[in-house]
């Protein structure tokens, strides 16, 4: 039972990292300036690295003798978990699957997510589960950089030109409704807290808002939850597998080779 929770919890963390990595990697070769092409690819690489560690751990959990989780397709591996689950099995939050849009939208998505992930991993380092704690600790350095880089860009765009300011506001319009889900615990997150190894995400909200508002201040934007966004309804569902229509297309591309050539080694 605890193992089921641990598995789901780990998969959620892994899916978040993989889907955002996949989205960011669409920029590779198409960035607005070479240095930033490199930077966003770097973040993508960090996130794939995190995803791999987490999937590997989840695969271990599945493969260890215990009947309840049910891998189905033989020995689970990081690749079977990433490439052979369909939309309803994916547990990432809605935020990370949203389209790249323009650079402002990509930056803001990264800033929202990295700020959350930073706070999450800070707590997760202290998890009673040693593997999760170790992965969080190792990833925290990377995430610290992601927060810094995306914060700087939010400020640069917000306090840049009228056009960049406007585009950042549009991005906010697109993405704000997906931020609430980060702090609304899914079943397995609540269970993971009870079981002792999970982080209480609702408790991260205040610190997250503080950081967002601090950076928004520098970016000459009103507070994120102000400026007409006070009452915006927060979308949820992704963490429980009820996604937007975006994810199906992401998976069709991501998984093509493993689906088309079942059982092959690469």
């Amino acid at each position: 039972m605890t193992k089921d929770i641990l598995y789901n919890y780990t998969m959620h963390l892994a899916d978040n990292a993989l889907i955002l990595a996949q989205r960011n990697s669409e920029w590779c070769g198409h960035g607005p300036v070479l240095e930033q092409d490199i930077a966003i690819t770097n973040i993508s690489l960090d996130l794939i690295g995190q995803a791999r560690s987490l999937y590997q751990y989840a695969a271990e959990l599945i493969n260890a003798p215990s009947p309840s989780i049910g891998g189905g397709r033989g020995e689970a591996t990081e690749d079977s978990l990433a490439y052979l689950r369909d939309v309803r099995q994916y547990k990432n939050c809605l935020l990370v699957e949203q389209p790249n849009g323009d650079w402002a939208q990509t930056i803001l998505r990264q800033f929202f997510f990295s700020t959350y992930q930073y706070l999450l991993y800070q707590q997760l380092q202290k998890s009673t589960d040693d593997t999760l704690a170790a992965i969080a600790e190792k990833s925290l350095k990377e995430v610290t950089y992601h927060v810094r880089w995306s914060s700087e860009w939010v400020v640069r765009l917000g306090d840049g030109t009228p056009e960049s300011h406007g585009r950042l506001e549009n991005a906010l319009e697109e993405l704000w409704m997906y931020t609430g889900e980060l702090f609304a615990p899914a079943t397995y997150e609540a269970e993971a807290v009870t079981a002792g190894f999970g982080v209480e995400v609702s408790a991260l909200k205040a610190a997250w808002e503080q950081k967002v508002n601090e950076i928004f201040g520098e970016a000459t934007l009103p507070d994120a939850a102000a400026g007409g966004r006070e009452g915006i309804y927060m979308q949820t569902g992704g963490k429980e597998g009820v996604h937007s229509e975006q994810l199906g297309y992401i998976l069709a591309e991501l998984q093509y080779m493993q689906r088309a050539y079942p059982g092959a080694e690469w």
Partner: protein
Amino acid sequence: MSVQELEKIFLDKIDQEIKIEPKDWMPDAYRKTLVRQISQHAHSEIVGMLPEGNWIGRAPSLKRKAILLAKVQDEAGHGLYLYSATETLGTTREQTIVDLHSGKAKYSSIFNYPTLTWADIGAVGWLVDGAAILNQVMLCRTSYGPYARAMVRICKEESFHQRQGFDILVALSKGTQEQRDMCQDAINRWWWPSLMMFGPHDSESTNSEQSTKWKIKRMSNDELRQKFVDMIAEQVKVLNMTLPDPHLKWNEQTNHYDFGEINWAEFWNVVKGNGPCNKQRLDARRKAWDEGAWVREAATAYAAKRKARAEKQEEKQIA
């Protein structure tokens, strides 16, 4: 000093294998040749990101995805080193890029072929990077200092890339029949274009002679190509695959592989802009640049504001 005297100093340095540095006097034609060649090289790195980038989203395992992403990122880095090297010669990155987009500057024609299957990513790494490395190893000893130093950094990474490409093909060659077919098919399509990467025969090469005198180039197109054939003809055996050339054969006399004649009509056709992807590649680069304009402007505007604020702050502190 007279131009003659300056030129003598310049040629003496070349003779004595002393690197030419940005502040040194150099003949206009030397500078021009270098700008043309280095910027072409830089553009090749950047345009070269596209055919490989085409498979990042579909890489068949997470490990391969990470390796490919890192590789394409390295190419962006190489582009940066090389744009910096052209800047030491007095040409801005922006101007260099404008020349690419207008079609004035060239890039390696190999990147005008499409990557159709995952095996192509292996073949590009093995053959295309393999061919590039031979050229680059030579350029580590080129006479212009910043170019030579950029090449030293690039070479280290490129040989790593070539091994990774070969490793992709090794996995395919040990795989299912479908994978082996995919592997052979990619080799068939990339072999001849990669031979073309070394450029026309020495007898046809217009820029080569002067470049050799100035020690920009240190081996001829045909010498490098032969080296490449000799290397690949051996490596392909490890894969249990073949090269698509009925004339390929070890020659005991020359101690080299003989090989068939390149289709030069195809070569010149692609150079002229008629390759399968010439339009798509340039369109993609232009689109990235144009759609990034507002981002670059925002960064510039913000930097200016920051600077102005800092100066104001300083004035206050002084006053």
